[in-house]
């Protein structure tokens, strides 16, 4: 494909009128910038609302500021960064982030993988019905999901506690969102519940894409079911597994943000806060913009590094089936 397009009406050229004297060079120049004109709206928007604020966050991280337009920003150098670890709740937020990340893995990887492998080829009609039902949580709004689970998991009136009391004769109902031992697991569960259908479908789609001849060949060689899974299916699924592992590592804390915000506000006793929620509270509750920005910079770079490692790993380990 080339940019030659001389002699064709160009409605996009309204910005400048071609001068008849230098008609050809102008049109050539115009043809050359044409792709950029088409890209402009998307680029301007992404540049202005994503990359510019990203740079601004880096900049704000060396200032002390309280978000008030009238109050001056005070340059403090690296102080925000050196203070980071001593900030209130930082330790517990990091620890909780690890819990969320690991806690979501059964929902994003393990259970979906088992179900996808176990239920491969169950017939088109049935599988369409299951797909439609299993996927439903994915399209629900996080706030609506919080609202529904808040009702289901309500200590005294929720159906879950009623059922648990009936089945296990609990001495007192579980306070899912206000008991500091339960709250983080409740949030993790809701995050996972929303995700599990999506992950299952991703793995099922990957299973469908696998060339069944490999499995037939292994069966002829008298491989048993476990050997087939271990030596054939898992290697072939490894790109998908790595992809989902990366997604849930990078985003578990971001996905849980809405549930924390609506259901617990980080409590009880900060047991459900995580690093993203911390950025939020530093920024918009204690108005410590410097701390929030410095923490944002560190987390951004940290997660960027993680993403890079995952991509390296994907390239190295993945066994591609052509």
């Amino acid at each position, binding site marked *: *494909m*080339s940019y030659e397009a001389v002699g*064709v009406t*160009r*409605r996009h050229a309204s910005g400048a009128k071609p001068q008849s004297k230098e008609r050809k060079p102008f049109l050539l120049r115009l043809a050359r910038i044409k*792709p*950029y004109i*088409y*890209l402009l*709206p998307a680029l301007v*928007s*992404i540049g202005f609302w*994503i*990359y510019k*604020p*990203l740079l*601004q*966050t880096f900049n*704000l991280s060396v200032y002390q500021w309280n978000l008030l337009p009238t109050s001056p920003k005070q340059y403090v150098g690296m102080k925000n960064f050196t203070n980071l670890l001593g900030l209130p709740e930082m330790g517990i937020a990091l620890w909780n982030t690890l819990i969320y990340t690991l806690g979501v893995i059964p929902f994003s990887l393990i259970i979906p993988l088992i179900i996808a492998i*176990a239920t491969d080829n*169950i017939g088109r009609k*049935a599988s369409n019905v*299951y*797909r439609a*039902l*299993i*996927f*439903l*949580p*994915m*399209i*629900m*709004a*996080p*706030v*609506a999901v919080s*609202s*529904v689970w*808040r*009702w289901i998991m309500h200590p005294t*009136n929720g*159906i879950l506690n*009623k*059922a648990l009391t009936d089945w296990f004769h609990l001495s007192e109902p579980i306070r899912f969102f206000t008991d500091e031992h339960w709250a983080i697991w409740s949030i993790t569960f809701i995050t996972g519940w929303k995700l*599990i*259908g999506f992950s*299952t*479908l991703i793995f099922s*789609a*990957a299973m469908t894409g696998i060339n069944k001849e490999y499995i037939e060949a292994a069966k002829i060689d008298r491989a048993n079911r476990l050997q087939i899974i271990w030596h054939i299916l898992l290697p072939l699924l490894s790109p998908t597994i790595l992809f989902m592992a990366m997604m849930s590592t990078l985003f578990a804390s*971001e996905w849980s943000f*809405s549930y924390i915000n*609506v259901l617990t506000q980080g409590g009880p006793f900060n047991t459900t806060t995580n690093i993203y929620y911390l950025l939020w509270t530093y*920024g918009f509750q204690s108005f410590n913009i410097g701390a*929030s*920005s410095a923490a*944002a910079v560190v*987390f*951004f770079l940290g997660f*960027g590094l993680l993403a890079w490692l995952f991509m390296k790993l994907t390239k190295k380990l993945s066994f591609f089936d052509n």
Partner: protein
Amino acid sequence: MEKVGRNAGFYTAATIKHAALIALALVAVFPIYWMIVTSLKPESEVFTSSFIPLHLTFENYANAWNAIPMGRMLGNSMVVAVIQTVMQLLTSILAAYAFTRWEFRGSSLIYGLIALTWLVPFQVIMIPNYVAISDFGWRDHLAGLIVPNIASAFAVLQLYNAFKSYPKTLIEAARLDGASDWGVLWRTIMPNLKSSIASIGILLFITSWNDYFWPLLVTTKLENTTVQKGLQMFISSDGNMWGALMAATTIASLPVLLIYLLLQRQIIDSFVKGGLK
């Protein structure tokens, strides 16, 4: 599977498969079912565990509708979601066309910059964006909700894949017939990619309708916000009005649920495709 006893073994395996899937489907659907059922129960019944409303009523809907400016917020959500979706489609159609139609300097760099935006979490850039919106005077304003989201990196990448699959020879043929680049885009390519653009549009609409972070940040008054933020305020203000809360939740989810009811095949397919890329 062994040849002998194939039938018996086959059927047990099938039963286990279906049992696992039914269990998963129940876990996925029950909360949504329970939301709707609770919303249809009269106050005296809300706290019972009956799985169907014994005396069907819509009083919860009336209560929810009157407790918060529901109509206004639904309208706001609809305006924001529709404009955002249309703008995101337009900007990404133009961008995807540029990437697939021409080879130009910096194209892979620009593509990389767009693709890498998924590494920038909302919480990392929220403070500068909040300041920008405040400077424009767009807090508590629909413009403040819409303008930051007129381009979507996800949409660009998805449409890029759709455009890439369109045969180059057909573009060449249209060019030989004298079509301009602009004409090729709208009269040759677009009619053929209608269905994939529509399903990307549906995903964008759902994402925008469900968005909560940004309205949470830039709006404070109920009349100026979207239904998600309104629902959150209803949740935190409630006493024990579970019936009304579930009615409000159902109303807030209704557009998305209806779209899903009609188009679940396309929605699932494009979600899965988007996830796999």
